[in-house]
């Protein structure tokens, strides 16, 4: 209700003095009206003013944790009574650990914009991303986070049963062999049907997932004999697929695939935004220039396009031993051609030319420039010359 909306005799409405005072009342009482209407927000963890948040936390029995942003405290308060309801149980500890894990998201938001340190944008928590095991006879609880960084513990003490140790670990590590190692406890053992061992999510080879198993070759020399002995029409047992969770020695020896690429791939499989965010506390991909197209001359004068690309500086820990150069394509060390973001000079460049192409259309292909053996250039050629 505004003061200016109050019905008044028309004679007053005509008075500019009166109208002036009406405006004045409105201006004066506007803030008070706002406060009254929104007073109940004091009890809403998402809307409570930052300077009063500690009092709301205290009212609920939570000690405000100023090591972490206010937005995180808001999230804790949203889930706090659920935690307390399950205090002492595995569900309670799991919930508290999941709330802990959400801090990576919130801290990342805060890096984007200062206000996000206070405002809570995302009220969800990364469910199924924490593995809690109670070792009661030994007297300890094991908490494994699906993250490469252990979060600051702000919640577990409120639910942890007294008298047990609580060991917390991050369950994801990057090792120097460019592998993401996941603690096996983070996988659902019932689904995987594997023992509790270290699982190495290596890269898959195409052989592993994208083709049929080979059969015995049909001996060309005696096709009739083969047809008469159908038992030979069988799978070639020597042609095996590698189990995904075993170390793939064959490929591990050749770290050709970019580690970040592989991580991205694994995360696409997991298809969980929270896991992706909590896993990479520093983003390994960011917006940068795409690799320069070395096939276009003079390439140095062209500013490459913006592109989502692998950020070398953010992952110095595990990129140290890794060459992102594709050796097959980089002829000179001074002109590296990264393996990421395969170069495509023109749309259609990578399309294979059908063998029976008969039309007279020219195809654009790359060719070594005869004038300078260091450069390649694009030339148009008819199909028959390719």
């Amino acid at each position, binding site marked *: 209700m505004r003061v200016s909306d109050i019905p008044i005799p028309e004679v007053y409405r005509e008075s*500019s*003095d009166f109208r*002036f*005072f009406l*405006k*004045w*009342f*409105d*201006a*004066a*009482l*506007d*803030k*008070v009206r706002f*406060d*009254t209407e929104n*007073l109940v927000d*004091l*009890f809403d963890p998402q809307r409570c003013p930052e300077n*009063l948040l500690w*009092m*709301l936390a*205290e*009212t*609920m*029995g939570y000690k405000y944790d100023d090591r972490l942003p206010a937005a995180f405290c808001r999230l804790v308060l949203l889930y706090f009574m659920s935690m*307390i309801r399950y*205090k*002492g149980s595995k569900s309670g500890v799991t919930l508290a650990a999941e709330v802990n894990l959400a801090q990576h998201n919130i801290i990342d938001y805060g890096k984007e914009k200062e206000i996000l340190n206070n405002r809570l944008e995302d009220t969800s928590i990364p469910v199924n991303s924490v593995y809690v095991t109670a070792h009661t006879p*030994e*007297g*300890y609880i094991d908490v494994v986070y699906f993250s490469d960084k*252990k979060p600051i513990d702000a919640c577990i*003490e*409120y*639910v*942890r*049963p*007294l*008298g*047990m*140790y*609580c*060991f917390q*670990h991050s369950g994801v590590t990057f090792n120097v062999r460019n592998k993401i190692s996941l603690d096996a406890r983070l996988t659902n053992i019932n689904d995987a049907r594997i023992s509790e061992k270290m699982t190495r999510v290596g890269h898959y080879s195409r052989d592993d997932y994208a083709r049929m198993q080979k059969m015995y070759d049909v001996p060309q020399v005696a096709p009739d004999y083969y047809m008469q002995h159908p038992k030979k029409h069988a799978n070639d047992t020597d042609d095996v697929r590698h189990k995904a969770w075993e170390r793939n020695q064959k490929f591990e020896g050749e770290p050709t695939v970019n580690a970040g690429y592989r991580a991205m791939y694994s995360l696409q499989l997991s298809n969980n935004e929270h896991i992706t965010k909590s896993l990479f506390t520093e983003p390994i991909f960011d917006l940068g220039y795409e690799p320069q197209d070395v096939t276009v001359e003079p390439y140095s004068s062209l500013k490459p396009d913006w592109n989502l690309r692998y950020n070398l500086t953010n992952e110095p820990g595990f990129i140290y031993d890794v060459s992102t150069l594709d050796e097959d394509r980089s002829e000179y060390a001074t002109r590296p051609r990264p393996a990421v973001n395969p170069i495509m000079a023109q749309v259609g460049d990578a399309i294979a030319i059908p063998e029976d192409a008969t039309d007279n259309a020219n195809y654009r292909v790359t060719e070594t420039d005869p004038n300078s053996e260091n450069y390649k250039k694009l030339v148009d050629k008819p199909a028959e010359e390719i």
Partner: protein
Amino acid sequence: MAKQESYSRGLVNYTSRDYDSLLQEFKTLIPKLTSLWYPDAEADPGMVLLKLLASTGDMLGVNLDWLANEVFAPSVSQRKDAEKVFGLIGYTLGWYTAARTEITFTNNTDQVLTIDFGFNGNNFSTVTAYDDITGQARTITYNILPKTNSYGASESRSRRSILTSDIDVFSNSDVVKLPRGGSCTRVGIEGELRSFAIPVSKVKEQNYVITLPSQHIDTTAIWVKAKAALSDDDYVETQWKQCQTTAEFIEPEPRFAVTYDNYSNAQVTISNYLNQLENYDGNYLIIYWIDCSGVIGCVNKDVLQNLVLAKPNQELVSGSGQIQIGNLSNTVELPNTYTVTGNSPETAKEAYINSRNYINTWDSLVTLHDYNRFLNREAGVDCGIVIDCQKALEINMEIYNNKNLTDSQKSKMYITKYDFPEGRDIFDWQSALDLDFDPSDPQRYVFATNFKTYTAMCFAIHNDFKNSDFGSGISSEAQIKKSTKFMRYKPPQLFIEGVIKDYEPLQAMSVEMRFGYARIFNFYVTGEIYTVKPVSSQVADAIVETAKEALRLYFSPAAREFGQKPTIMEVVDVIQNCDDHIRYFDAGSISNPVINYYNCDSEYFNPISFARYIDLPESAHNIRVAPSCIID
């Protein structure tokens, strides 16, 4: 759509809430709102209106801010608001509390004595003390509640319960046969039994609320009975039972609760089950309560005498010495007994502090916070702390990771096996703690990691380090390398057993409760007080005494926590605010520190330590009024 006026988004600064700033804002607003008026005189009717408006804004703003404070536990200031805020978390504010104690009656004769402690329809049996706790002559009467006995094994001081809910204290017979030298115990409650009768029909008219003619009511000792006629001796069969709040009127049973009106007056609310009782309207409800005198009703040990039995015609002769009466002192509450110190109603601030010991526990002990709350709410505990193996480890890790401490300082602070018993050595600490070494490796020992699991290690201070009916605390000097580093203190063994007994009915887990030796660091204060104007030496002495008293209160164990070191700011603040004569307190310099640890090394101070304020003898003149401020 009408064009939004520019002022609608607010021209008044958000921080302008008081009269002066609002007035100033309004004045600067005038040219923005109109070009027809330029007020230049204070007497201008427009200016008068403007001032009225600013004053309204001021009042509304202040009240709104106040309102915002009233909704949070730490800032709530009015009792009626506190009742609602803390009611949400299941905490009921305390009203007047009658002092209680356990009274033991021992047969002094050679024959078997039969005594009946029953209620006679108007009175309980009574015993009387003729001195109060300060030694002043005062008659303090204790009512003996029939059928109450000494503390049972299934009872807990730590659960907030209503004494009267389970016991029929109006039993007209409570006969005890005492053999020679035999004794029995009853609970005694200080005050006068009073009653108030009201017709049932009137209770209905008053919307089930009964206003009592007194406010000095112990809300845990209040009873409702019904009579068909006021002259009847017998009660109607209906058993009216007390609930903590009206929210517990769930069962269609006769229930009542003590509630408070908007002005914090206690009243009795009757369940509307009253309406369902047939042929009940002609009856009377009689409210009995103990009209108590609060804290001045407390008594010292064994001062109660003069047993007057309520039931007539008994073989016991009053004042004959046939019965020896003993009682526990209730100036200090003791665990596992019915000793209760008399109290006035809890203020909102007290309720906030006390409710912290109940929040989220729901009277069950599971987490570390629960145990800490339990220990601190326990009768007779001034302050205490509970740690378990994980907390001890976290404390040590925290000290280890503290970059502001040297290795030598760290080694003094760590919690050791002398503070917390060792556990089974089954863990690989290097990997468990994600460190690159094992901190408890004997070859490279840094700090203790291996504490006993399933152990709640309690450290507490009982009765301000003084003796109580449970004996004296156990203290000794902690000597390291032939010099005393601090004092070690543990409450009396009987007290510890009482606390553990109290804990058992609430036990949710099989955790062993143990009491350890707290590290106690004695300190005294040095400094000079400067007065507003010169004072005589007698006044100066009185000021110093007031300052010392204020420090004693401020740093008393009941007002402090474990792990809390005194700060210079606190000392200065306490002294400067204790007396109007004081202008400021000179807190010395680095070479003359204001806080001096007495015969101990404060580098050993850690979270299981307590800084204990001590007074030096008067001749020490550690706190004095500056000579320049004294005239003689």
